[in-house]
């Protein structure tokens, strides 16, 4: 029994309830209203305020106000008060590169994993998926500082690194870019594996089998028969990793130290020690812009159930 659409007068019966358009609005206001209102007031309006803030000036005594200016953005682009300073453009670039790199690493690690899980028996599949999800729901802070222990001096990994000539004896493997990548991978892998696995679940294997029948070798089968089918889930996962990764601040903070300044740390600085809120807002806006672009692209290519698939 399909739930039909509205009748000509606009009256509809849904789930047995007779609804005029006016009634639907009232019911919506009573149910969806509070939640939507809350998120709008406490998030969307503040986000708009951030955008507004980014056009204000910070005076010499720390007060924030007019005049409106593009200064914050030009500074981000590198054109500061003292000529061209590549600091912030590099920060942005580094963040994008890190996010892209993380996405790539997650993909390389996660693709075989998804492929692995889909081949398990149903019971084992459930267990495997739950195992993937559990770390995701534990505290990121705890998981990240744990890497300090794992990479610390005297640790197994550090000794391995010394043996390989990566570091001197007795030195930890962090803070370093490599450590940041490890932390990011550990944090974001589930984001990629779950949607990718969804696509794998829905895969039509007969196409791959037909390809093998016709004499294609493994790489070709992968490229032509499997890849096109899992592409939606893969792209969804990649976006779900990239977007939050751009603004990640805890992991670079703990594992990258003062050397690695990324978008997240930069924002934190402006709202912490530097107290330059308009500038911090501008940086945050760049982060938001990436989110918006990513979300827009995501909405275009993926379905709206993907977020639910995550849960």
């Amino acid at each position, binding site marked *: 029994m399909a739930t039909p659409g509205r009748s000509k007068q606009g009256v509809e019966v849904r789930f047995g309830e007779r609804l005029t358009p006016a009634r639907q609005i009232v019911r919506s206001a009573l149910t969806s209203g509070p939640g939507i209102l809350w998120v709008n007031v406490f998030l969307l309006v503040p986000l708009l305020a951030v955008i507004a803030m980014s056009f204000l000036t910070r005076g010499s005594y720390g007060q924030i106000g007019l005049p409106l200016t593009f200064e914050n953005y030009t500074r981000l682009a590198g054109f500061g008060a003292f000529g061209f300073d590549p600091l912030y453009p590099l920060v942005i670039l580094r963040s994008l590169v890190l996010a892209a790199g993380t996405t790539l690493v997650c993909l390389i690690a996660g693709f075989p994993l998804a492929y692995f899980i889909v081949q398990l028996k149903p019971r084992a599949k459930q267990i495997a998926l739950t195992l993937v999800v559990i770390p995701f729901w534990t505290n990121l802070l705890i998981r990240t500082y744990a890497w300090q222990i794992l990479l610390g001096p005297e640790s197994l990994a550090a000794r391995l690194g010394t043996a390989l000539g990566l570091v001197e004896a007795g030195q930890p493997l962090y803070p370093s870019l490599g450590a940041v990548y490890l932390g990011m991978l550990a944090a974001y892998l589930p984001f990629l594996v779950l949607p990718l696995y969804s696509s794998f679940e829905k895969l039509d294997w007969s196409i791959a089998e037909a390809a093998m029948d016709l004499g294609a070798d493994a790489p070709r089968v992968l490229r032509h028969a499997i890849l096109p089918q899992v592409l939606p889930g893969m792209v969804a996962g990649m976006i779900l990793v990239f977007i939050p990764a751009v603004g990640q601040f805890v992991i670079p903070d703990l594992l990258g130290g003062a050397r690695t300044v990324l978008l997240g740390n930069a*924002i934190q600085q402006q709202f912490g020690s530097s107290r330059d809120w308009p500038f911090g807002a501008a940086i945050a806006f760049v982060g938001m812009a990436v989110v918006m672009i990513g979300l827009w692209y995501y909405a275009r290519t993926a379905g709206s159930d993907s977020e639910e698939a995550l849960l």
Partner: protein
Amino acid sequence: MRKPSLPLWLWAGVIFVFLYAPIAVVIVYSFNSARHGGPWQGFTLDWYAKLFDSREKIEAAKNTLVLGLASTGIATVLGTLLGYGLSRYRFPGKKLFSRLMYIPVVIPDIVMAIAMLMFFSLLRDRLGLFELGMTTMILAHVTFQIPFVAIVIRSRMIGIDPAIEEAARDLGASAAQTFRHVTLPMILPAVVAGAMLAFTLSLDDFVVSFFTTGPGAGTLPILIYASVKRGITPDINALSTLIVLVSVIGTLAGLLLERPRRSSGES
């Protein structure tokens, strides 16, 4: 379906080790009697005992609990209503608002954190409302909890056979009666699951709490961060172990409740 090949098993094994190594090392080291996180020197429960001596930590634990319970309570009610409303009624602009709901889910938490910080500061300066502290943290947490709860409720609602509610109406139940006697009992497991997931989210949050907190309202994650910055101490490992335990139990319970059992919803 053919069985996975050996290389795949190995790869999967490596990855799982990789994913669980951090958690494992924290748990293991929480029992390590070495003072400064060095190599293993013997089993001890001292660090756990020490936790209960620290007033700072007890205070933070209390705050974390209050924050978690309060925000979860509010978010569960609002999120359930939202999930219900989205699955049932149409209104102009619904598609847009549905999409906007997902922003707290994907936005980098620092962007959300500073946005709220700015917002609360503005309100404080202009209207004298909302000193930074427990209240602002609760408000902030609810904001990112609501979409999660709503998503859980909404998918449960979609999974229910529409004929069941139609049958209730057909038998003479009004809208309120249908909700109370039929719909609510059927989605109750999902509501509880949503609440547990929301609580876990609150418990695990660091960034948003960090920016919206105030004096006397520090939470456990904030405490851990400050400690780690100074250098990892073993009692922090003990504390972390406990938190991880609570998160895992909460998540598993939530996941179990969320899966619709065969007997409910489908006749």
